[in-house]
Each structure stands twice: as C-alpha cells, then as structure tokens.
C-alpha cells in the first residue's frame, strides 16, 4: 500500500467516523419528523373536511328551515302564490318557489321530484331530490315542505346551490390543497380543483369516486394517500354528510404537505455533505502531514538498519581481508592458495552485495511482461543454478506441470526472483540433499514451488521473512534484501509469494502468478 492509499484510507476512516453517526441520527430524526408531519397533515385535512361538511350541512339545514318558515308564513295564505313570488326576490337562494295545492299538479313544478314524491309532500312529508344541474348548468336541489296550516298544500323550492360551489372552491389548504364534494353515487358535485370541474358538468367519474363511496359509509375507511387528479401523490382527509349521503374530501399534494420534513432531509443532506467535505479536507491535510513525518522517520530507521547490516557484514568481510592481507605480508608461498581462495570468496560475496543493492534500486513498477512458459523457464533456471548446487553438493530437480503453465512475466526479473529463492534453498540444504523446482497449477493461478529439505525457518520468524534486513542467515554474507526483492518483483507482476516451513523439514517458497492460456 503506497502513501496515497494509506492517506485515502485514513481519510475515509475519519470521514466515516464523523458522518455516519450524524447520518444515522439525522435519518432517524427526519423519518420521525416525516411520519409525524404526515399524520399531522392528514389530521388537519380531515379536520378541514369535517368543518366543510358541517358548513355544507348547516347551509342545507338553514335553507330547509327558511323554506319551512316561508311555508308557515306564506303558504297558508289565500294569496300564497303572490307572496311566494315576493319571497323569491327577497331570498334568492331559495330559487323558484312553487305552491302545490290539493288539485292537479302545476305545469311549473320541481323538475327533480316525481309525482309520487310531490304527493308525499302534499300528504305532510318533507321530500328532497338529489342534487342536479338545471337547464342553465346551475347546481340545484328540489325541496318540498308541507304547509301545516293547510293540509294537502306544500311549498317547493328549487334551492340554488351555487353557495356549495363557492364554499368548496374557496377552501384552500396550503398553497395548492383543495376540496371536492361528492353525491351519494360518488359523482362530483363541487370541486376546488379546476382540472376536475368538467366532471361536475358531464357526470363522468373522477379517480376519487370509489374512495368517496367508501367514505360515504365510513370516512375513516377511505384511503388517505393516493395519486391525485394531476398525477401527483396527495394526502387526503374525508368527512361525510350522512343525511344527504354526500362526502367531502380535502386533498393536498404530499410533497407540499411534507415540505418541512423534506426541507429537514435536504438540510441534513447538506450538513452531512459539508461535514464529509470538511472531514475529507482535514483528513487529507492531517494524513499527509503524519505520513510525511512517518516517512522521514522510516527513512532514518531504514538507513540505520542498512547501516547496521552493512557494518556487520562488511566488518566480517574486512576482518577476513585483513587476515588475508596478514598472510600475504608474511611472504610465505604456502599461504598463496589460501590467499587466493579468500580473495575469490570475498569478491564473490561482495559481488552478491552489489547485486542485492542493484536489485533494490531497480524499478520494478514498469515491468515488460511477455508470455512465458514456466516449464521451460524452470529448466532454464535449474541450468543456471546447477554449478552453484554442484559446488555445494546439492542435487537440483525440476517437476513440470501436467498440462503446461503459461504466465505473463518479465523474464529477467522473474529469473532474478526465482534464482534468489533457489540459491537460498541450495545454501540451506545439506550436502547430498535435493532442491526441487515444481511447476504447479492452482485454479486460476500457476506457480513455481522451490522446495528444500534443509533446517527450515523457525515459526516465529516466518511472518517477517519478507521484510527488508530480516535475513535468517546471519553469516555476514547476506544483508537481508533478497526475499524483500523477491516479494517486490512478484507483486509487480500482480502475483504473490508464500513461504511454508516446518522446523527440521525444510522450506517451500511459492511464486504464484495469474494463469495465461497457452498462446496460439
């Protein structure tokens, strides 16, 4: 994980730690607010509907009472017709007034009441028609009340219900809430919503018809949230006028009724975003600063470890060379073979130092990967390592894969890594021992396993085996950069390297890479 990734992870942690609790608490609060707002809005709408129904019922009752008074005051007089004409002028809402006598029914009589109903009125029973539109498209309702003082006589009025229209049209809840009124059959009779008013004239059903029929029986059973006439979701409150079978609903777009909750949600979202932004900003700055400090510290620590390793290993080499120089100073010919051996050996060791440091300095991020046959590659590596193995009396063996194993790899770098593992395995083996190079397949991965039968690595050291300067071979010939380099190279190929060991039973190092279909 590089520095930017570490910084990003830190930032995410800081941001989540700051914003998640805020979001959680806020969401719960907003949902609670939304539910309460909706319940309150429904209750308000229901209250307005009940008030409207009461007002409409009151208006109809007042008209009925006025007609009873007219029937009592004027209906019994001999010049009742004349008096009724005057009443029609003084009380225009009673509309046209008609006197029913015991004789034949007059030509101009209530349009919406049949002869039987009018006979009932003359026999002493109040009768009322359903609401209807007169020939001028005005809302009307016929009502007949008997004249108590003159049996067989009744006074009828064609009640003008413009007041019903006006009242329902005047009801406004919020910016766009409105009321609708329905008759006994669910037909629309008054509408505060302009889009629905044509239905009053045509009698065609509106979407709320079924709900109105439900509400007529039980206002509490009618739905309170449904798609409104303009397609948007509305909240609704219902009320009934049981004596007429009419219903009143007050509707308000849900978006408007719940605007407070919606605003709270937006505010919460804005605050969360702000908090997130601030957290990220602060996190990025602080992470960069901390990481920069850590990097400086890590550099010094690394330099110290390199210096310690170099001091220790080169000190040993210097001691040997000093000893060799002492032998050379004696001028004895007998030392010459030892001097030559020492110099050859130390030069080889120093070359290895140089090679390790060269590997360390090599940039493995831009590897040039080409298709590579691991079976052939294993043979090649074996041949390269053979002289070193023979010198130490160790036998090398290669086990090929069963069905071929191809990978995409930078041959040179992969060879450096594999030879490093193989060299370690050879050096860890006893004379006469065997080191195997096995080409394996593991599902989507293929690998090279370097298996030795040496002393193995203690279990406690295994977790840090790929760390720099953590060599298990403190012989003075290793600075501990080999395995870290192997890991670097393999990971640069998108693969991974593993190590297994049992004390006294040797080690198995595996380089695992993505399997490539054999190129055609």
């Amino acid at each position, binding site marked *: 994980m590089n520095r930017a990734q570490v910084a990003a992870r830190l930032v995410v942690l800081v941001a989540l730690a700051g914003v998640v609790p805020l979001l959680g608490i806020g969401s719960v609060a907003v949902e609670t607010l939304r539910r309460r707002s909706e319940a309150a809005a429904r209750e308000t709408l229901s209250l307005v509907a009940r008030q409207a129904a009461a007002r409409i019922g009151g208006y109809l009752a007042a008209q009925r009472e006025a007609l009873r008074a007219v029937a009592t005051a004027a209906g019994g007089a001999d010049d009742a017709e004349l008096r009724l004409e005057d009443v*029609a*002028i003084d009380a*225009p809402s009673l509309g046209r007034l008609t006197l029913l006598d015991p004789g034949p029914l007059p030509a101009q009589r209530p349009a919406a009441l049949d002869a039987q109903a009018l006979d009932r009125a003359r026999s002493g029973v109040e009768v009322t028609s359903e609401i209807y539109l007169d020939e001028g*498209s005005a809302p009307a309702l016929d009502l007949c009340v008997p004249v108590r003082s003159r049996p067989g006589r009744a006074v009828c009025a064609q009640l003008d219900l413009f007041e019903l229209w006006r009242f329902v*049209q005047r009801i406004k809840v919020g910016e766009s809430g409105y009321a609708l009124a329905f008759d006994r059959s669910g037909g629309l009779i008054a509408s505060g919503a*302009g889009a629905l008013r*044509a239905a009053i004239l045509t009698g065609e059903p509106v979407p709320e018809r079924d709900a109105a029929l439900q509400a007529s029986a039980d206002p509490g059973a009618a739905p309170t949230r449904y798609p409104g006439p303009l397609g948007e979701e509305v909240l609704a409150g219902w009320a009934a006028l049981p004596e007429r079978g009419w219903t009143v609903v007050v509707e308000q777009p849900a978006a408007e009724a719940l605007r407070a909750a919606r605003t709270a949600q937006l505010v919460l979202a804005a605050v969360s975003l702000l908090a997130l932004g601030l957290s990220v900003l602060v996190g990025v700055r602080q992470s960069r600063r901390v990481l920069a400090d850590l990097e400086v510290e890590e550099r010094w620590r690394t330099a110290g470890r390199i210096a310690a390793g170099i001091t220790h290993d080169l000190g040993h080499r210097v001691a040997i060379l000093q000893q060799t120089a002492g032998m050379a100073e004696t001028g004895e010919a007998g030392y010459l073979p030892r001097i030559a051996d020492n110099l050859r050996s130390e030069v080889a060791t120093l070359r290895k130092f140089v090679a390790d440091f060269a590997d360390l300095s090599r940039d493995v991020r831009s590897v040039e990967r080409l298709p590579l046959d691991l079976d052939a590659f294993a043979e090649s590596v074996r041949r390269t390592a053979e002289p070193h193995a023979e010198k130490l009396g160790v036998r090398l063996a290669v086990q090929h894969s069963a069905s071929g194993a191809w990978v995409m790899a930078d041959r040179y770098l992969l060879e450096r890594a594999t030879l490093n593992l193989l060299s370690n395995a050879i050096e860890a083996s006893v004379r006469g021992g065997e080191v195997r190079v096995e080409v394996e397949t593991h599902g989507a991965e293929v690998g090279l396993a370097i298996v030795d039968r040496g002393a193995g690595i203690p279990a406690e050291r295994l977790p840090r085996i790929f760390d720099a300067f953590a060599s298990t071979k403190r012989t003075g010939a290793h600075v501990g950069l080999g395995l870290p380099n192997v890991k670097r190279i393999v990971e640069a190929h998108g693969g991974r390297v593993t190590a297994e060991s049992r004390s006294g039973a040797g080690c198995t190092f595996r380089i695992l890479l993505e399997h490539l279909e054999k190129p055609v």
Partner: protein
Amino acid sequence: MRWLLLPLLGAALGCPKPAPPADFTLRLGVIGEVGPVAPDAQSGAAALATDLVFESVIRPVPGGWDSRFLRRWERLGPRRWRLELKEGVRFSDGSVVGPGDVAEAVRRRAVRVVSTAAAGLEVETPAASPLETQLALAIVAKQVGERWVGTGPFSVTGQAPGGLVLTRVEAVPGRIHRVELIPCATGREALVRLLRGELGGIPSLDPANAELLDGVPKLRILRGNAPHAIAIMLNPRLSAAERRALVPAVPVAEIAAAIRREPCCGEGSPPRLVPPPGVPLRIGYPRSLVFRRAALALRQGLGARGGDVRPLGTYDLAGWSKDFDLLATSILVRPPGIVANYLRTGADWNFTGYSNAVYDAALASGDEAAASEALAEDPPMVIVARRERVGAVDARLANARLGDWGILETLPEWEVSP
C-alpha cells in the same frame, strides 16, 4: 466575494427573456351555428367575427367618436349631412376603400346618399335624428364573389360547419395571430370543453356559470358592460304627470339586485319616493327569468301600486301597451344616441308608441340638452342598470377585456404573455 456574484449577474442578464408565441391561436367557443360572415350577421360565430373582420364608419371612443374612414362630418340641415373622406384605407384583400364603399355602408342603414365624390359624400337621414348612431352601425364591407371582405385587422381564412378561422391580415408580435370560432351546441358543452382545455375562451357566458370557472388556473374571467340596459318602459297611455311621479318611485336598486340574484339593499341605497296613489299597475316582461325577476322586484317596490306580473304572450313588444302599464325589458344604450331609436316619433324601434314633439325637435336641431329636458318633462322609461357581459379566456392574454359594443372589438389589442 463580489467577484463571485459577477458571473451570476452576467448569466442572469444573458438569459433570454421568454418570448410570447409568434403564432398564437385563440380557440373561442360560441353557442350556435356558424353562419356566413357578413356585415349584417346577427348571431353565433359570424356575429362575433364581424367585430374582427369589419369596421363601422365611425366608432364610439371615450369622449366622442373616432373614424378610420371620415376626416369629419357636418350637419347641413335637419336631415342633410356632409361626410369628408380619408384616403388610404384598404380592405383586407389590399383593395382601396373608395367613396362608393362608404356610400354602400350608409345605404345599408337606410341613409340616403345624395351625392358621391372623391372628397366626400352628402347623405340624408330618413328622419331628423343624429347621424352618428347610423354611422356607428354602418359597416364598411365589400362583396368579393360569395364572401365579404372588410377593413378589420382579421380576415376569414376558413369557414366550415366545424368552425370559423380568422387570421390577422398583418402579423403583430405579441398579439393573437389567429382566432378559431368553434360552435358548441349548448353552453354546458362549451364550459366542459373550456375546462378540459380544448378551448381558449368563451366570450359570452351565463354569469352564473362563471362561478364554476372561479379560481381555475390558466383561465381568467372577464366582466364588462353590455351595450344593453334593463329598462322599465312606461306606457305612454299613462299621463305625463303620472309618469313623472312614477320615475322616482321605480325601485332601481332593488331591481338591479334581483337581476344579480343578490339580496337588497345596503344602507347606501338612494332614497326612493312612494308612487302616487292609483290603481295597481300591470307589469309585463319578455319571457325570461331575468326579466321576470326584474318585474317581480318592480312590483314589490311599487307596493300597493304593484299589480299583476305576467309575461308577454309572444316577444311581440309592439303589442305590449294594450295589456300592461309597465314593461321590464332590455334596450340598447350604446353607442351614444341610440336611445333615440326607441323614443323618436315613428322610429324603427319605437315599440311603445311614445311621441314627444319637443324631443323630436331637439333631435332635429342636434340640441342634446333640450332633448334631455324634454324627456325629463315627459319620461318614457327608467333605465335600471347596464347588463353585464361575462366571458373567460386563456390567462396568458394579459390585458383581455370585453368590448362594450362589439364583444371582441378589443381582441386585436390583447397581449399574449409568454
């Protein structure tokens, strides 16, 4: 911080303002059939179209008269007039309006043309009455083949049973470009189509139906005065003295409230005198709910003098004076001076048989003050209130209003909002 506002300000200034549609079509619902568009069309879509297609020789404007055809006109004698013509007026087909076209227009109003010259005409009215009323009703039009061509801002571009299409002769930005007059069988059908958005307006509505349009988005209710007024005609058989005594006793405010179906009356109502004693007066009315309510209110207001209230047997106004003493009816009060057509002795519309020599003489001499004085001395009627016109149009027509003579006469000036 201020520099942050600059881009916003720039963006706001840079935003193009919404423009009104360049080809705005107004679909108006009209109750009745589509008849041929002609200067004498009296009803339906064709009558409405005359407001837009034709122009009268003169037209009333606040404080007087205006004319596109006459430079001036002057009285030469009790019945003789000289009309001085303007030049350059054209019909919608591009042809020039000549003296003959104006002469033909006044002839159609039964005004005799004595002489015709390029500079003007000399005309003679059939009676000693103001010429202006006749000129205001005289429509300049020319028959081309089977159709009539006018000088108005619109011309007929489509005429079929399904509607009448009028298109502006010269396009004017921000104004209505095309008017479609759509016939509807009933007022209810027109209302339904308006509420459904199939129509952009109804120029003539029953005032009661306007209740249903109140608060409907995208629609605006228009109210204005009609050229008619409710009047109580006094039978000339009653003596002048009795008629003089009756005039202040007519319950004008009560009748006006009854027509509007409103209760009457507030404390600010003008005082009304008690009618002189006598036999109950018989009150007639043309068979219509409005006039019936006016007649009933009149009877109620007259108290003991209020007699029988009955409708006329037919709409035969000429016969009313045999059966009734008072008549609640409707008369034209616009354009100015037109009332003379009801009151001058022997005038076409004088169905009451009213005759007042002093008034006739004042008319002949053009003395308006003397004419008013003569009518006050021997009153023929009481004007109650102008009748109301109600219409509804697309709310985008910002300054729409109904004309008090031709109902659509102001339509060419209606501005279309974006």
